[in-house]
């Protein structure tokens, strides 16, 4: 009954329960309405007082008990399948953070979308950099929370090529509903060329600033075109005077390299006027090198 795919597994269990549930709902509702009509006071002025019927009561305790135990067992065996990742699964680390996902492959390649080869089981090792998130891929019927300080896992078999939605399913703050990504299932050949191309690139030139901003999730809240998001825009930021709130007092600062670096590492120290203190410190997320790469990019973003 359990095939090699989480989608079918969940669908089968769902259908099994749904059929029983619909039969029960229709019989209960129909019987109730039938009684109300048949024993209407006009038709039936003299009621009969039936206090109990042992056989009937035993029946409606025993039969539902058997039904729910069957549901439990069917659901549990499906669940065991969903929690037993095949040995040959490709491992990808998934990290949730406010408000984007980062997927890190075995060769160190990082991306905001989950690209996987067709037909090969994938095991996701999940954690969070800040608060609790939930990694949810509806097309494959799987979900598990990303908990800070803890590693959880999921696995699935991407046996259909295409793009599938990936959501955050645990409420995580202002931009929770835009913490959306994609699972991209492509043929092994295409995946290999993408994967190895990245591997060659790694270690040569430093990734450019804009790419880092994308990869580190900065652009979920900050824009590069002057539009105001959750945080202030990067456009024209460098070299400008900024009004910030520090320790409850307003002051003006000059947006130089030191200020930008401090705002990345200790975002809570100076809050730009009109915004709230919600950015997580990036000390674990970025290396010194990456920070200077980003600052170099911001300098050019007039």
């Amino acid at each position: 009954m359990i095939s090699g795919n989480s989608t079918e597994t969940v669908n089968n269990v769902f259908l099994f329960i749904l059929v029983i549930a619909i039969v029960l709902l229709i019989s209960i509702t129909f019987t109730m309405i039938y009684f109300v009509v048949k024993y209407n006071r006009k038709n039936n002025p003299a009621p009969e007082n039936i206090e109990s019927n042992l056989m009937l009561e035993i029946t409606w305790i025993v039969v539902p008990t058997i039904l729910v135990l069957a549901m439990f067992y069917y659901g549990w065996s499906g669940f065991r399948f969903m929690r037993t990742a095949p040995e040959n699964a490709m491992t990808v680390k998934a990290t949730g953070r406010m408000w984007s996902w980062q997927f890190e492959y075995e060769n160190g390649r990082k991306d905001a979308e989950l690209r996987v080869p067709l037909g090969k089981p994938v095991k996701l090792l999940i954690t969070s950099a800040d608060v609790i998130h939930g990694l949810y891929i509806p097309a494959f019927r799987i979900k598990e929370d990303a908990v800070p300080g803890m590693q959880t896992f999921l696995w699935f078999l991407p046996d259909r090529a295409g793009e599938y939605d990936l959501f955050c399913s645990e409420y995580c703050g202002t931009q929770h509903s835009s913490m959306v990504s994609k699972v991209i299932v492509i043929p092994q050949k295409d995946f290999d060329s993408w994967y190895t191309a990245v591997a060659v690139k790694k270690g040569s030139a430093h990734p450019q600033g804009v790419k880092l901003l994308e990869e580190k999730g900065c652009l979920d809240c900050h824009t590069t075109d002057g539009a105001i998001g959750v945080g202030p825009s990067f456009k024209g930021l460098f070299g400008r005077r900024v009004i910030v709130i520090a320790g409850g007092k307003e002051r003006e600062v000059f947006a130089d390299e030191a200020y930008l670096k401090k705002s990345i590492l200790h975002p809570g120290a100076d809050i730009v006027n009109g915004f709230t203190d919600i950015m997580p410190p990036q000390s674990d997320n970025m290396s010194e090198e990456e920070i200077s790469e980003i600052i170099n990019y911001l300098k050019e973003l007039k």
Partner: protein
Amino acid sequence: MQGNNEPKSFYESGGPHKGILSWIFTTDHKRIGLLYLASLFIFFIVGAAFGLLMRLELIAPGKTIVTASTYNSFFTLHGVIMIFLFIIPGIPVSLGNFFLPLQIGARDVAFPRINLLSWWLYMTGGILALMSLFTGDGPPDTGWTFYAPYSIRTGTNVSLAVFAAFILGFSSILTGLNFVTTVHRLRAPGMSWFRMPLFVWSLYATAWVQVLATPILGITLLLIIIERFFGVGFFDPSKGGDPLLYQHLFWIYSHPAVYIMIVPAMGVVTEIIPVFARRTIFGYKAIAFSSIGIAAVGFFVWGHHMFTSGISDTSKAIFSLLTFLVAIPSGIKVFNWVASLYKGSIKVDTPLLFVISFVFLFCIGGLTGLINGTLATNIHIHGTHFIVAHFHYVMFGGTAFAFFAGLHYWFPKIFGRMYSEARAKFAWFFLFIGFNILYFPMFILGWQGMPRRYYDYLPMFHELNLISTIGSWILAAGLILMFINLVRSIKKGERAESNPWKGTTLEWTVPSPPPVENFEEIPVVTQGPYKYE
């Protein structure tokens, strides 16, 4: 004692105080019940307004009326108000306060002054919760579950909202304590346990849950406050805490709390069916024991809220099995209710109409609960709109519909007037249709993968969200029609006799509205509650 004169109704003699003071300083369980009833529905209207605003925002993808952070505050406050201020206190503090002493032949609850203190605590908590909207750095935005570490880190006014819930907990514990003692000590002579009305049984089972489970919530919320103010790392892993510990503690209370919400509603339903079928209840003992069974097993199933949280797979299997066991007593009740209509002499007045729709909606809520309790399917629908649909079917379609049924059923006893039957049925129609249009699409949305607490959604989810929002307007119209009918009838309804429905329980033996002391002489009970011979 009043002697031979007709005793004055409790509206006419308010004790030592006059005017508003005769209400807010009363120790009469009937006046306290009405104080609660009025406060509950004021908070309900505020909560419903937040709900309508949420649906309006979700009418189309992207920004419609408010920003994401405002929306997040909307669903937090909708949840906090509806759960802590409306549905948990709900039936016990209003209908329960009013009718528990009357149904067991007592003059009041065991501790009338503690009863008043409960109401004051409730109002204090309620006002603090509303204050958290307008003070501090913005209204709380954590959801009613206050999950750590987000609730520790967010800059919004979480501490005050959590403190409000803490205070409300004490109100709930004291009411539970009062009811347990009242049932044990104040039953009229001859009223043995199995001669008690089943509404009393349901209040008794609920009261134990309130007394035993609520302290855990109190401690948990206190820990949140300590962590926020003093940085002690209970739950935030960056301080060495454990976020799963919070979820365990929270649900150890909040799952039994689900039964605090539904069991009294089941009691109301059980009370109404025999009266409108003019026959005895089928399976009295089965219904009484199933209330106790639900309350007891309900303590051990909290882990099903955590199937995707990262707890061990073994514990998930155990919690899933236990969850299925708690489904059985609810099933028993449904079968007994339907069987109690068999060979009755049925008249579908408004209370029974609400009860029949309760059974239907509660079945949908309960049967979809099986999908939630099953491990494989839970993983997919956990944290989606499927869950939102499920618990609104149980809580609104279940508890609130039963509450409305009870309000209509006991309206003549409480106010001494009848409501307009035609208007009540007209309002019911809007409520029933609007409810289903509002919540049923959420089952499909959830199965399609739309997570809950989403301010924005993909275009593929648009149609069903649009339908749901339209349903919310129909439902709102139904609520307005129902409230207008009831409020208007308080003054303008026809005078009600003492027993308009031909009920057989003790509250129908006293005048409508009841006198201050309830019974001129404490009755002696010689038979069970639903005797129609």
